[in-house]
C-alpha cells in the first residue's frame, strides 16, 4: 500500500465521520437555525475531506482539479442557500430557540 492510498483512506474516513456528526446534529438540534449549523457546516467539511481523499486517488491532474471545482461550487451553493433559508425563516418570524428558556 503506497503512501498516497494511506492518505486517501485517512481523509475519506475523516469525511465519513463528519457526515455522521452532521446527521446526528440534524437529528438532535432543536430548531431550524441550529439545524442549519449542523447541515451547512459539518456536512460541508465532510464533503471537503471526501473530495480531498478522492483527489489522492485521481488518475489524472484534470480530474483532481474538476473534483476541487465541484467542491467549491458545493461550498458556494450551500452558503448562499443557508443564508436564504435563514433570512426567510427570520422574516417569517420563526423564533430562535434559547438555551436559557427551554431544555431539550
Amino acid at each position, binding site marked *: 500500500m503506497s503512501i498516497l492510498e494511506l492518505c486517501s483512506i485517512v481523509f475519506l474516513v475523516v469525511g465519513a*465521520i*463528519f457526515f455522521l*456528526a452532521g446527521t446526528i*446534529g440534524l437529528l438532535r438540534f432543536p430548531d431550524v437555525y441550529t439545524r442549519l*449549523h449542523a447541515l451547512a*457546516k459539518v456536512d460541508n467539511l465532510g464533503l471537503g475531506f471526501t473530495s480531498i481523499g478522492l483527489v489522492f486517488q485521481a488518475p489524472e491532474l484534470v480530474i483532481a482539479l*474538476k473534483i476541487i471545482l465541484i467542491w467549491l461550487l458545493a461550498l458556494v451553493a450551500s*452558503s448562499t442557500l443557508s443564508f436564504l433559508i435563514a433570512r426567510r425563516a427570520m422574516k417569517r418570524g420563526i423564533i*430562535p430557540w434559547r438555551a436559557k428558556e427551554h431544555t431539550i
Partner: protein
Amino acid sequence: MISLLRTTLYRSMFFTAVWWILIEGKTDSWFVGLISISLALVTSFILLPPNQFRFSFTGFAHFLIYFFGLSLKGGIAVACMAIRPNPDLHPNIFTITPRLPEGLGRAILTNTLNLLPGTLSVDLTLSSLYIHVLDERQSIETEVRSIEEKIAHMLRLELKKS
C-alpha cells in the same frame, strides 16, 4: 483603459481555465468553449463591473489559509457539540456593523460567515449584519473583525472606522 484591459485579460484567463477543467482537458469542443467563455465574460462584466477593487494574490492565499484553519477548528467544535450526550447549546443573535464597504466585500463576508462553523448570518441590511451563533460564549466579535481585515487585504479595500 489599461486597467480595464488587464481585468479583461485576467477574467478571460480564469474562465478559460474553468472551461478547460470542465471538459477534462479534451480539445475537440473548442467552438462551444469559445462561445461559453465570451458569454461568461459579458455576464461577469454586467454583474461585477471592473475598477471596484484590485485583487491581491498574496491576500487571497492568506485568506484561504485562515479560512480553512478556522473552519476545521469550528467544524470539530460543532461536531463534538452534536455527538456529546448533553449538547451544551447557547444560541444567540448578534448584531455587527460591518466595516467593509457595500458590495462584493460584504457579500464575501456574509458567505464566509455562513461557511464557518458556529456562525450563521441571518440577515444583512444596509447598516448591520445579524449573526446567529451556536455558542455565545466564544469571542465572535474579534473573529468577524479579523475576517474583515483578511477580506479587505484580499480585495485591497479600505475599512471604515467603526
